[in-house]
């Protein structure tokens, strides 16, 4: 995916201005930045939920090959876990029978075997997140956009889901663009990290390659020698981005 000079404005001053970034095939890329830097807006523009004011987005993928995971699982409460997972397939022309079979396979694969008949209200936060993940993966996406999808989970559940997601995207060679506030998460999961400046008129200020080899365990990646120096650099650059507008205002 190639994003060039993307500008997004809701009304008046642009929240994001001239942002460019690349996500190569099979790469895991993270986007970090201060609150209000337009990270989520950029993802919404990539999936077509927000019309950009200017710039270009080239993915070379069809609409159904791009999946998105939001912070909220956004499952339809009146559909069972199985029906929620099968939904994307039926909306794209797969017969209901085949879609339900495929949904069951993905529920099993993500450790939700036997829970297909449950409504979202009857699932835990971690289980709902896995259903949302199955809903995206069942479409066999080539690119997944993630908007802080693990933020609402507790530490243990989060670690387990993140480990499963990393194993899956590595095995299936799926490209990922992850938006997160969590620098540790960004480094431990990604091949590259982009830093956005403070908004409004936020733009990409830095690009960091993460030299931690794959396949990767997200927990062990934090103990890799390259992790700490990169974390320090990112932290210092991010702090400068947050402090700079305050200094200018003062």
């Amino acid at each position: 995916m190639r994003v060039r000079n993307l500008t997004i404005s809701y009304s008046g001053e642009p929240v994001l201005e001239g942002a460019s970034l690349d996500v190569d095939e099979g790469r895991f890329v993270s986007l970090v930045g201060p609150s209000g830097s337009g990270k989520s807006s950029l993802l919404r523009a990539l999936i077509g939920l927000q019309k950009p004011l200017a710039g270009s987005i080239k993915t070379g993928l069809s609409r159904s090959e791009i999946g998105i995971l939001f912070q909220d699982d956004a499952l339809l409460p009146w559909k069972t876990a199985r029906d929620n997972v099968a939904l994307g397939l039926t909306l794209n022309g797969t017969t209901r029978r085949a879609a339900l079979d495929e949904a069951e396979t993905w529920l099993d694969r993500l450790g939700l075997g036997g829970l297909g008949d449950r409504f979202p209200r009857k699932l835990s936060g971690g289980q709902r997140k896995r259903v949302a993940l199955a809903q995206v993966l069942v479409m066999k996406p080539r690119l997944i956009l993630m908007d802080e999808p693990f933020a609402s989970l507790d530490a243990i559940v989060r670690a387990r889901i993140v480990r499963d997601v990393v194993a899956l995207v590595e095995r299936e060679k799926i490209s990922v663009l992850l938006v997160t506030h969590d620098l540790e998460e960004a480094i431990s999961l990604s091949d590259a990290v982009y830093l956005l400046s403070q908004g409004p008129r936020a733009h990409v200020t830095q690009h960091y390659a993460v030299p931690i080899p794959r396949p990767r365990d997200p927990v062990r990646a934090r103990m890799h020698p390259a992790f700490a120096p990169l974390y320090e650099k990112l932290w210092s650059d991010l702090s400068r981005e947050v402090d700079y507008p305050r200094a200018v205002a003062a």
Partner: protein
Amino acid sequence: MTALDPRYAWVRRLLVLAILLAVWEAAGRANMLNPLYAPSPSQIGSALVELFGDGRIWPHLEATFSAALGGLLLGIIVGILLGVVAALVPFIAELIEPVMTLLNAIPRVVLAPLFVIWFGIGLSSKVALSFILVAVLIFFSVFTGIRQIDRRLVERIVTLGGDRAALVRHVYLPSVAAWVLGSLKVAVGFAFTGACVGEFVAASRGLGYLLSFAQSTYNAALMMAIIVLILAVVLIIFSLAGRLEKHLLRWS
């Protein structure tokens, strides 16, 4: 304080009701109550048995049921249609919302005499009153519901490749069904209110008409028997509506 077991709440309620009825009956038999104003439970029971025994009640029940269920059905259909259209078309909302707000603000039973003039003393005027009571309730339920629909669900369908028809099928219709079912019990009460008030104002059949007749003949036992009957009918329909709601909204 000892916590009460909620499973046996109905037993406790039934027991208190039985005690109240026994006290009431005893007071009646001891001539402490004037039967002209407050007949005893046994006298009310006798009036009920008499109503059913000679079969007089059936045409009246049929009339009230026809009016209430007709108004309920029409009110639900029209309320949903208007609510959906107003929520999706701002121009229609501009026209309809003030009228519905006005109708909601006034006690709509004041329209009963007008409906008798417009539609006659037959079934139509009662259906009209039930309809207007139910339609306004359902309209606001659907209208506000659609306007407050969870945007995340809409975006989920869009990002999964769904079109407008998919949105209606997978988000709007289930949401509307949930709001309508949530208002169903109140709507049933409104529908019977409309039918009975309409019959009370002018009719030749129906429970409302019987009430009016009992009032004009100063027959308190008959009046209370009919009130008990209306209560029983509404409770049965409430219970059926509750079961339907529980089944269809089992996901909530």
